[in-house]
């Protein structure tokens, strides 16, 4: 059985896979008891700007339940976003750290 699972979100808010990734991460954390790490990269970093409504609430609940959230720094830079623009608690990682996340998890899925 897995203990650590990464969920990578690459899609912007407004595209269904972004919410599907958040929902799956939340379910794995709260129903499955997995150690779930959410990594937003590419356009997925826009999900970390403090969205109103369901998706933003899901993310805040995920973090409140102990899920960790990470943003790829180069994705922020490419989109002109500063780490300060993200919701509190997001860890900005570089490519090497993202690779380490993948390496030491039992599974990584991408949405």
């Amino acid at each position, binding site marked *: *059985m*897995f203990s650590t*699972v990464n969920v990578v979100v690459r*899609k912007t808010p407004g595209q*269904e*896979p972004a919410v*599907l990734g958040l*929902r*799956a991460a939340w*379910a*794995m954390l*709260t*129903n*499955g008891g*997995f150690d779930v790490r959410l990594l937003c990269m590419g356009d997925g970093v826009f999900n970390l700007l403090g969205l109103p409504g369901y998706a933003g609430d899901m993310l805040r609940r995920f973090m409140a339940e102990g899920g960790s959230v990470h943003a790829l720094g180069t994705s922020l830079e490419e989109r002109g976003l500063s780490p300060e623009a993200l919701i509190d608690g997001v860890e900005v990682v570089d490519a090497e750290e993202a690779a380490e996340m993948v390496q030491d998890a039992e*599974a*990584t*899925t*991408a*949405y």
Partner: protein
Amino acid sequence: MSRTITLVLLSGSTENDDAVFAVNLSKAILEKGGKVNLFLYGNGCNLANKPVPVEGRSAISDALRAHMDGYVLSEKIEELTRLGAKIATCHTTEYSRGTEGCPYLDGVERGDVGNSYTRFLMATDVLLAIGN
């Protein structure tokens, strides 16, 4: 020892090779003695339902029908369940598509991320998400 793979399929079948790939991969794994869980999520849930043909002759041309038939997976999905695959839907994504009450193909189970998907993950060796 046989291993178990859980596939999360995010794409429906229409002119999209992701679903065809996922179904063919599932069959190959089953035929090699592996176990398969297939979770139909997002557009993938469109694959769960029994086909409802139009009454009378369809307006689709023979050439187009031949092309589209390559993406019709209902028989292959029922074959997967006969071979032992566990296939479940996300009823939330069905709800938003208006298909939550539509009949399922034989062997497909109604499910959700909180129970079916999580239960799949508790007894799997490999996790793979396909589609977008």
